[in-house]
């Protein structure tokens, strides 16, 4: 038997769910969990709501995406081939830019000269610039090596763009980790001192 209080809680839950749903639905950009929490203080309830929303929308034309603890509705990629709507026409990225982005994604945080070492060629002007302008990368902490070079890392917009919830979902990341290819201390032509550690 449902008590009156249960009923009130239930009604309350539905209204809260609607509020959370509307908040996320209304925004083009992912809404941080912290912002949702300011509406529904009880994180148990909030998590329940988010779970329910994810479920409700899983088979729809619009799905709930989780992007590094932020939430956004995105059209289902299942029907992408039918949706040739106003695509953002952008110049395809150069190979240098796509490879640089991948290096930043898989090796982050990574300095410019580390990127150059991995590619074996110096980075042309504007490569970092293009990625920064797209909003896909952002500065990370400076390294404690001489000169304190700036590092680069990927942003939430990067995850959003490629439909990833977190960096662990990067394709092949585990294979790369296990193969040791993400180790930092092997360099042939070093312009940074090789660290023996």
């Amino acid at each position: 038997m449902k008590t009156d209080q249960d009923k009130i809680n239930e009604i309350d839950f539905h209204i809260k769910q609607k509020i959370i749903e509307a908040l996320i639905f209304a925004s083009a950009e992912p809404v941080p969990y912290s912002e949702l929490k300011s509406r529904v203080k009880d994180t148990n309830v909030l998590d329940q709501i988010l779970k329910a929303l994810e479920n409700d929308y899983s088979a729809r034309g619009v799905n709930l995406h989780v992007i590094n603890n932020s939430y956004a509705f995105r059209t289902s990629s299942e029907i992408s081939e039918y949706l040739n709507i106003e695509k953002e026409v952008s110049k395809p990225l150069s190979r240098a830019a796509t490879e640089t982005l991948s290096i930043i994604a898989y090796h982050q945080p990574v300095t410019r000269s580390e990127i150059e070492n991995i590619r074996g060629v110096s980075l042309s002007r504007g490569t970092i610039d293009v990625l920064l302008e797209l909003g896909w990368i952002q500065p990370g902490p400076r390294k404690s090596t001489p000169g304190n070079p700036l590092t680069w890392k990927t942003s939430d917009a990067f995850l959003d763009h490629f439909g990833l919830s977190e960096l662990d979902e990067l394709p092949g990341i585990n294979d790369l980790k296990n193969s040791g290819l993400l180790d930092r201390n092997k360099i042939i032509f070093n312009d940074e001192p090789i660290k023996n550690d």
Partner: protein
Amino acid sequence: MDNLQSQNTQILSLSLDGFEGPIDLLLSLARDHKIDLTKLSILKLAEQYLEFLDKIISKDIDIAAEYLVMGAWLAFLKSKLLLPIENDDNLENIEDLSELLEFQMRRLEAIQNVSKTLFKRHQLGVHFFKRGNPEIFNVSNKFQYNLSLYDLIKTYGNIITKSDNEKITIANTRLFSVENAIIRLKELLKGSKDWKSLLDFIPNDIKSELENKSALASHFVASLELVKEGNANIKQDNIEDEIFLSSKS
């Protein structure tokens, strides 16, 4: 055999255009000559690279420094590999170097592979879409300004480059200020009760049209100023006729 193969393949079209640096070139050579990276036949690969580089150099094609550095390094490695092994130290050293090269090639190959996979994924704005008509909740003011880090940095970059770059030199021109024209007119008009054309007061050593316009304009304004001060009379019979001045005192 290798030479025969290489003639049939596209990558040896004698250009470095398609390559993203020497390691990328090495990877292409390895793929092209089916040189197995797991049992990296470093000598074979080094020879392929040096041969390719030779051809490029003989054609006088522009080469980025990185390709030459790698060439020198591979030549060094090749000579070490061909020398009889004198002691164990040398062997270890060579093995280390080969291993490092192998590591770098595998690492770049892995990145190239994941890069392709990454960009084969469905992408926002291409394959799936965000809300087309967002409604924004009035949470607080700061959400209404969307300045990106890129905008901020770019703005600062512009300021810095400008202040570096923009040293404006103003060409040395001879223009006439109204102040000077007033002083000059007062001097020339002193005691002259007869009507004299404004044009007669313009300096006669004018060299350019710009100077002429400037002198005329400043002297005309100066004459009005003198009339206003009560120091001069001014008259013009009809529009576009000559303007005449005379002294009041």
